[in-house]
């Protein structure tokens, strides 16, 4: 055997200096812009001179209280602004040297920027309640996380699922109707996955049996579910709302001890069973995808289905099963809109969350954990918009409601870096 069997793909060029990669100025520019916004808009010219902002943490059920923190608005924002300017300078310097920065850098930058923004935005009203802000963020992330998990299971096995939106809506609808008819929110929770899976049945039927373009099928399915639920809503549900569309809510089940930790307890462990189910789904999916036989096969059929076929793995059968499981997950997420939030079903109440879930999946690089953090980011942006517009801040509330979508565009367009979708994603597999 030759000695050259184990080699890295390519070595560095002979004339190394002549062909350095072009400097990537994207991040330094964004950092600098945000740092200047902080320093000038939130700090020097923020109009918050002499005012103060209080961050409160207590939730009343805590084992021990964390005292509220009060800061003087303008000096704090200016101080953070100066730190951010320094960080932007460091980022620029490193970019010029073509050095990479760890993930901690944007995270720290983002948290500081956010603190400055909250300090400035809370200067008029004086009080920012941190715990409800985070708890609300998690709540709004629930359908996103379920949706992203659905998309991920499908795409890892090579089926693009644009119909997450429709599956969420179908889940919300069936959960509301069943819970209302049985007068038990848990019945709705049990029914919801079937609605999502039913949409998935149609998806797999056309995508796998008839090789129809998966994106087109997904779009059509979304429209179909909207039409169907609207029709049933305005005929059946509004005829007899007491019977078919009465509000049912999953009760909050506090977990002893864990639920009493300040800040974290109310956010993570004083939730309904749906949220606890979400923790389980994410953990199980992560382990299954990367450490189980099912996961290995799923990743294989999403990357190179023919290779899987040659070792006797039935590609299309696995794709159907995975897409149905995924549909069930999305349906469960849909239950959040109705029984999860204690609301009756309303027309088109999923409101584009399925598409944001897809964005979370991509931003999370098709990894369950990554997708969860991406979904939390979107959920937080949305809740921040809601909270601030009700608190009455200097920023117009319509602008604040755009916040999650702006975050989505920036995240997906610029900050993802190099992502690699499963290679056979969206490609029908046919045998001769």
């Amino acid at each position, binding site marked *: 055997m*030759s000695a050259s069997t*184990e080699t890295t793909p390519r070595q560095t060029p002979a004339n190394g200096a002549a*062909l350095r990669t072009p400097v990537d100025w994207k991040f330094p520019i964004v950092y600098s812009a945000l740092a200047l916004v902080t320093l000038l808009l939130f700090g020097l010219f923020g109009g918050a001179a002499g005012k103060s902002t209080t961050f409160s943490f207590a939730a009343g059920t805590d084992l021990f209280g964390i005292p509220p923190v009060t800061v003087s608005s303008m000096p704090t924002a200016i101080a953070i602004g100066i730190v951010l300017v320094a960080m932007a300078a460091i980022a620029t310097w490193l970019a010029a040297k073509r050095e990479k920065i760890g993930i901690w850098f944007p995270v720290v930058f983002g948290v500081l920027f956010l603190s400055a923004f909250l300090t400035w935005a809370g200067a008029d009203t004086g009080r920012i309640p941190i715990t409800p802000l985070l708890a609300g963020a998690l709540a709004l992330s629930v359908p996103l996380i379920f949706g992203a998990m659905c998309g991920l299971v499908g795409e890892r096995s090579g089926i693009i699922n644009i119909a997450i939106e429709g599956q969420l809506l179908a889940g919300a609808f069936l959960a509301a109707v069943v819970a209302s008819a049985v007068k038990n929110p848990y019945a709705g929770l049990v029914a919801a996955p079937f609605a999502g899976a039913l949409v998935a049945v149609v998806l797999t039927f056309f995508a796998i049996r008839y090789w129809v373009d998966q994106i087109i099928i997904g779009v059509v399915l979304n429209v179909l579910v909207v039409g169907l639920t609207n029709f049933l809503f305005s005929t059946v549900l509004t005829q007899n709302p007491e019977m078919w569309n009465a509000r049912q809510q999953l009760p909050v089940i506090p977990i002893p001890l864990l639920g009493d930790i300040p800040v974290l307890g109310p956010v993570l462990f004083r939730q309904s069973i749906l949220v606890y189910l979400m923790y389980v789904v994410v953990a199980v999916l992560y382990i299954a995808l990367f450490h189980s036989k099912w996961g290995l096969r799923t990743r*294989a059929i999403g990357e*190179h289905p023919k290779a899987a*076929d*040659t070792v006797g793995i039935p590609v299309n059968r696995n794709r159907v099963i995975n897409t149905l499981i995924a549909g069930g997950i999305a349906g469960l997420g849909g239950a959040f809109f109705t029984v999860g939030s204690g609301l009756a079903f309303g027309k088109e109440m999923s409101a584009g969350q399925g598409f944001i879930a897809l964005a979370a999946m991509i931003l999370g690089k098709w990894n369950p954990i990554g997708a969860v953090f991406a979904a939390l980011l979107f959920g937080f942006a949305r809740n921040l918009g809601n909270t601030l517009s009700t608190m009455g801040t200097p920023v117009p509330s319509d602008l604040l409601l755009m916040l999650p979508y702006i975050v989505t565009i920036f995240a997906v367009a610029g900050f993802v870096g190099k992502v690699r979708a499963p290679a056979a994603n969206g490609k029908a597999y046919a045998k001769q």
Partner: protein
Amino acid sequence: MKLELRGITKRFGTFTANDAIDLVVEPGEIHALLGENGAGKSTLMNTLYGLYAPEEGEILIDDRPVTFSGPGDAVAAGIGMVHQHFMLVPVFTVAESVALGYEPTKAGSLLDLAQARKKVADISSRFGFNINPDAVIEDLPVGAQQRVEIIKALSRDAQILILDEPTAVLTPQETDELIEIMRQLKAGGTSIVFITHKLREVRAIADGITVIRRGKVVGEASPESSESELAGLMVGRDVHLTTEKDDADPGEATFSVRGLTVVDKSEQVVVDDVSLDVRRGEILAIAGVDGNGQSELAEAIIGLVEPRAGSITLDGQDLAGLSVKERLGRGIGFVPEDRSTDGVIGSFTISENMILDLYDQAPYAKGMSMQPAVVRVEGEKKVGEFDIRLSSIDDPISTLSGGNQQKVVLSRELGRPLRMLVASQPTRGLDVGSIEFVHKRIIAERDSGTPCVIVSTELDEVLNLADRIAVMYRGRVVGVVPAHTPRDVLGLMMAGVPEDEALARVEDGSAATEISAAEEDPA
């Protein structure tokens, strides 16, 4: 294990890919299945492996009839296959690749990757494969990927191993290593079916040879047969394996590349500081194993990829910043590597494909409108000139065989006055007859004074055409050597060994390959 195929027939629609094929492979035999591209070798093996269901015929293992409804059955019966295009997931590790489909599990159906790793390490050390179980497939060179495929088959206790065109992607030295592996497997009692169209290798390794042509078995041959006998059997008529050509009469160098560097999408350097000169009336062949930057070099010349550094000059003018169309206008003829995706448009007619880059010029266009009548008339002329076999010039080009499609591409690229020709893999996938024709046309173009750059991974083609040979390895030009350089020296250079060292190693006899030894045998 003894394998026997009796009267296997496989049809795709009206096309009969395999017609009543009989084949017997004795235990511990290396049996070569020889035939041209498209003769039906791969179809036959895919049928044997359970990927296709045959319309007629039966498969017998140790004289007992078996039927396979999928590859799983074939594997269970002891058949392993190494596909021409490897069936490996690029992002998996070696251990994951070997485990796939036959996953060892521990409690809770979790993967037992430790066991998979151990299996890889065991087989790897038993045969000296030198494969790290945790290496990621896409980081491995093709030779190592092929060994992973063999480990896959062996880990499922394959008694019969099918190797489908295993040497297509290997350097001569890697081919030698593969032959050594095949010998070891044979010594261990494994039967091997070795599919190839390369005569040299067949004679070096096979115990028995079955030749198929157009889906039918046309004869058995012994490894002692001469190359031209085998070629005649394979093609069905006498063939000339080398093309007659006069010595080059080169003029001044009108085309040159200086310090050319190309970087791919993932920021890997694929063409690394390449400098070359090509003179009028000579063919510079670029040799190298597939994926060592030759394709990117050709694409940079025509302008399909933007180089990161360096210059390309033709007739004293720098081509930097010129579009592909402008470069074509300067008189560059370009035969792309992948005929079906880059050379022709399958659904367009033959005559339309002949003017893909001339559609807006006289006489094919007049102002805003095209001149379909002229296109047809000129097309008919080229059909005669380039000996294109077709039923109508208005048929879609996808109805033609690969050889005739390539003739259409050549008629387009050579049918106008050229200042320079770049041809990438001009005969890949062609039958022997078409190869002869393509080579003759390229030599004719050279003789008319055009500088020619021919990229080829087939050493036979390189030796046949070249006036000088540039060998590329990992994006660099290892050396530029004269046309009569020995095959073994080129083989070593294709593995990155510098010219001097390669020459020295060949002279002291330490690097002679089995393949070249087979060449020396009296035929």
